[in-house]
């Protein structure tokens, strides 16, 4: 397009040190994407993928990975410009007229988008949408295309494909919709598939299923796959090579085994270190402080230098070129020598000394939940509204939280974990059961007592972008709870300063608005606001789910430190088992409104007794390619069931691998009796709601 018909760029597949393989299917050279003048999302990107090869592209939000993908398929929004070269089987795609590109898109080069809810047209059946892909390119008859669509749906594992082809997207679960997207992508046997965060919005169990379907798709079509993800765990087991992006450039690339074992660019090292893990010893994640530069930043030196612990003045002289650091392994770092042997380049934060606490049994109970029920009625009927059913969001759960400890509640989306948290936060009489906060039954509270109790019980929400009022300065946000509880004005200012210091924010942030803060800083403000009234119990609703991986670690460490220093108790709701493991002392696993397992975190992660807990742990991808490849546990089948119609007997039975392996007699118990949580023989601290706990 711009006369730079250059050969393979420095990050191309045939990097120095590797034998040249078959010619690449998709080859991107010096790709640059500019949105408005000055907003440069991609700043010179090179990569290539060979037939049947999987390239994992990893980067945090704003690193330019999606912009690069859209540029490759020629679907950048109007106003955006792409320069450089994108070649598919040797043919240049950039700069070709849209009519020609349309013949390539969906046929030779297919794409799978992130959010399958919004990526499918709501008003056409999924069968028609897949058939359309075939008809646009192959000119098949309507009937033939429909028949092929059903075959494809069957291939991606949609049960009863012929009937489901006539259903609309909203009648599918998130995981099933993503299968439809994959079916659409492979409809015309593409030579390359770009999958842009295909599993990001999904539960771990569903994520494992979708990756499995993507594997099937790869094996069926033999296509080259570019798998874009925001964390290194997802691509570890699936990609052959990995490329890490930062601020619009590739900063490191190479074979997965090599990059994960011997990362050389400090950013990659930071990403790997900040990732919490479910296996191995429990180590404190190491945060990468700071935030990525904005897309308008000029190109002066290494973009990571401001966050890099080993940056030198020369890092800021020029953008570092990629240099070979191993077989097929390139790193764009002038200090690659310093990272050889993987020295601990990031300062490991030292946790404050843990205070001596009495054993758990002797500490006071701050929160006790017993038989908590929250049912939502569903209404239906033709002439008169009548109750058509009940969503059993929370269906009788019991646990307690003691002073200074963290209880993590985990489960798939829709299992009722957030509902349970909101029920506790209401501080009102539950539909059934009892909630006791600091020894006071919430059903018996007067309005005044309830308000007083709210001081001791605060909440931190998931989305720091939505939970802070955009029109209030940080100081006002932090002072608001103080004002609501009658703290004098003079004391408020002082307290705001204390709070900012407590959560590690500079006092200058007091005068800023939320939009002037990064995601991690906003969540720190959210935590500071929760701490304003010196509560004793914090309810944390997915506190790091909306944050980038490198920032998550900082927030988790902050929560851990605050707990040690202030003696707080946490009730932490999260879907990420690795995150929960970092901070939780005890873990409760929820499934369909019930607690299926509860116990001390270390014991539970080491030896899960309930088959659902085991399946959840197995589904968490770990940033360890060798381990990921070795273990090929089939992912948990099926979707989380309809909470309005729980199955007879044990609710987990339809998806339970243990039930599937049982013989007739022992199955009957699962089919007829809903298991109550009980104490297994070996572990006095554990509760398991399973008839056959602990077996593999």
């Amino acid at each position, binding site marked *: 397009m711009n006369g730079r018909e250059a050969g393979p760029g420095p990050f191309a597949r045939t990097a120095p040190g590797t034998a040249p393989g078959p010619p690449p299917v998709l080859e991107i050279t010096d790709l640059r994407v500019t949105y408005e003048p000055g907003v440069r999302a991609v700043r010179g990107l090179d990569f290539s993928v060979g037939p049947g090869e999987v390239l994992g592209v990893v980067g945090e939000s704003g690193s330019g990975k999606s912009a690069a993908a859209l540029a490759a398929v020629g679907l950048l929004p109007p106003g955006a410009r792409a320069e450089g070269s994108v070649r598919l089987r040797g043919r240049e795609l950039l700069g070709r007229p849209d009519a020609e590109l349309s013949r390539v898109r969906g*046929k030779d080069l297919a794409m799978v988008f992130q959010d399958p809810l919004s990526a499918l047209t709501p008003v056409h059946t999924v069968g028609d949408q897949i058939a359309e892909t075939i008809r646009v390119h192959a000119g098949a008859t309507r009937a033939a295309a429909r028949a092929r669509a059903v075959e494809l749906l069957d291939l991606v594992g949609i049960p009863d494909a012929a009937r489901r082809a006539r259903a609309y997207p909203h009648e599918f679960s998130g995981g099933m919709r993503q299968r439809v997207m994959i079916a659409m992508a492979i409809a015309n046997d593409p030579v390359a598939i770009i999958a842009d965060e295909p599993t990001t919005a999904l539960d771990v169990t569903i994520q494992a299923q979708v990756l499995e379907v993507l594997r099937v798709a790869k094996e069926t079509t033999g296509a080259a796959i570019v798998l874009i993800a925001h964390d290194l765990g997802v691509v570890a087991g699936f990609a052959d090579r990995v490329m890490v992006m930062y601020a619009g450039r590739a900063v490191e690339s190479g074979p997965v085994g090599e990059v994960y074992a011997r990362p050389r660019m400090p950013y990659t090292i930071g990403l790997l270190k900040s990732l919490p893990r479910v296996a191995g010893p429990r180590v404190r994640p190491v945060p990468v402080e700071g935030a990525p530069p904005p897309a308008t930043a000029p190109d002066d030196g290494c973009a990571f230098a401001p966050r890099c612990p080993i940056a030198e003045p020369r890092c800021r002289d020029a953008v570092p070129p990629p240099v070979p650091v191993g077989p097929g392994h390139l790193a764009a770092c002038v200090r690659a020598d310093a990272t050889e042997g993987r020295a601990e380049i990031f300062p490991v934060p030292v946790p404050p000394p843990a205070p001596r606490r009495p054993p758990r049994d002797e500490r006071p109970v701050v929160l006790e939940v017993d038989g908590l029920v929250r049912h939502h009625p569903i209404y239906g009927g033709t002439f008169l509204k009548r109750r058509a059913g009940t969503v059993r969001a929370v269906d009788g759960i019991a646990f307690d939280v003691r002073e200074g400890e963290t209880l993590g509640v985990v489960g798939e989306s829709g299992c009722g974990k957030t509902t349970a948290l909101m029920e506790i936060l209401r501080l009102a009489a539950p539909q059934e059961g009892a909630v006791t906060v600091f020894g006071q039954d919430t059903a018996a509270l007067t309005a005044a007592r309830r308000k007083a109790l709210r001081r001791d019980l605060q909440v931190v929400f998931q989305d720091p972008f939505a939970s802070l009022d955009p029109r209030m300065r940080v100081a006002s946000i932090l002072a608001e709870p103080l004002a609501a509880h009658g703290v004098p004005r003079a004391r408020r200012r002082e307290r705001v300063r204390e709070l900012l210091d407590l959560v590690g924010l500079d006092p200058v942030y007091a005068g800023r608005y939320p939009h002037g803060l990064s995601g991690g800083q906003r969540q720190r403000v959210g935590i500071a606001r929760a701490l304003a009234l010196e509560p004793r119990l914090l309810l944390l609703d997915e506190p790091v789910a909306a944050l980038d991986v490198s920032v998550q670690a900082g927030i988790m460490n902050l929560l851990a430190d605050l707990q040690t220093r202030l003696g707080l108790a946490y009730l932490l709701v999260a879907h990420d088992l690795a995150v929960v493991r970092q901070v939780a002392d005890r873990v409760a696993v929820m499934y369909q409104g019930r607690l299926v397992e509860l116990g001390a975190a270390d014991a539970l992660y080491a030896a899960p007794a309930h088959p659902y807990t085991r399946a959840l742990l197995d589904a968490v991808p770990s940033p360890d390619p060798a381990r990921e490849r070795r273990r090929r546990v089939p992912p948990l089948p099926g979707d989380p069931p309809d909470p309005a119609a729980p199955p007879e007997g044990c609710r987990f039975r339809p998806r339970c691998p243990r039930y599937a392996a049982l013989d007739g007699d022992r199955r009957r118990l699962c089919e007829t009796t809903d298991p109550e949580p009980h104490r297994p023989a070996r572990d006095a601290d554990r509760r398991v709601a399973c008839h056959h706990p602990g077996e593999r």
Partner: protein
Amino acid sequence: MAGFLLRRLANYAVLVVLAASLAYLLAATALHPRANFEDRVPRPPDAVVDAELSRLNLNDEVPLTERYLTWGAGVLRGDFGRTWQGEPVTAELWRRTWVSLRLLLAGTVAGCALGVLLGAYAAVRQHRAPDRLITLGSYLLLSAPVFVLAVLLQSAAQKVNDVTGVQVFEWLGETGPGASEGTFGALGGLGDRVRHLLLPTATIALAQLALYCRYQRSMMLDVLTADFVRTARAKGLRHRSAVLRHGLRTALIPMTTYFAYTFGLLLLGGVFVEKIFGWHGLGEWLIDSITRGDVHVVAAVNCFAAVAVLLAGLVSDVLHGTLDPRVRTGDAP
């Protein structure tokens, strides 16, 4: 779907009863048919006037509740009472309904369709010359009341007729005298009717078009950047097909609700248009009856309008259900 519609119909029945009753009560309290008799020369004796008014159920000496009940009983039998001159209202109502229908139908359909298309086109060409032009035009139309529009169109038509020297446009009444007796017989009569329809239809269509155009444009803008249009493009659809098959199809759904809302405005516009173009439809009848104090006609036309607005609501529900599969399945118990 059937169950959903039945439920809606039941709701609507209640609303129609309410609207009709309120219209009658308002008309019966505000209008004075007695004045028509008192103005007569020679003035008839009070006893005769009373007797005549009582016969017509228009006597203001009779308590309002009693008159209302008499009227209501009649309406339930399908009888809207009589005009103050003693003619049955119901027959005239039907006759004039067809006149109004002939006038409004073409204008509504043309206004909706053109408005949606122009709005969608403007959205696709956002910030470019066609969009600016369409936006300017629709704002001009929106700011011109129907009667101003009608008069402007009439003078423009006069100009065209003067310049060409042929009666291209006609704008008085439904037909010209003796049109079907010409050389073309009945066909000539039809042609004449169409010629008379042109200007009033254009007036109604233009007023509708502007509203739909603005609304459709914003709906369309939302959809153009939607992920599913991008998916359609990634499948290999050209921009135009992706926008039409996936974008416009989805952006039409909210328009169905809008249709119900604008229908009342349409009826009001129809009143002006009938009056200005000399059509003897319901609108003209309503205005004339209000000046004459003709309680039963006013109540009947209002009742009809209520039914029409609610039927428009029903049509929009059906359209919504047809266009949006999410509503259809949501209805299943």
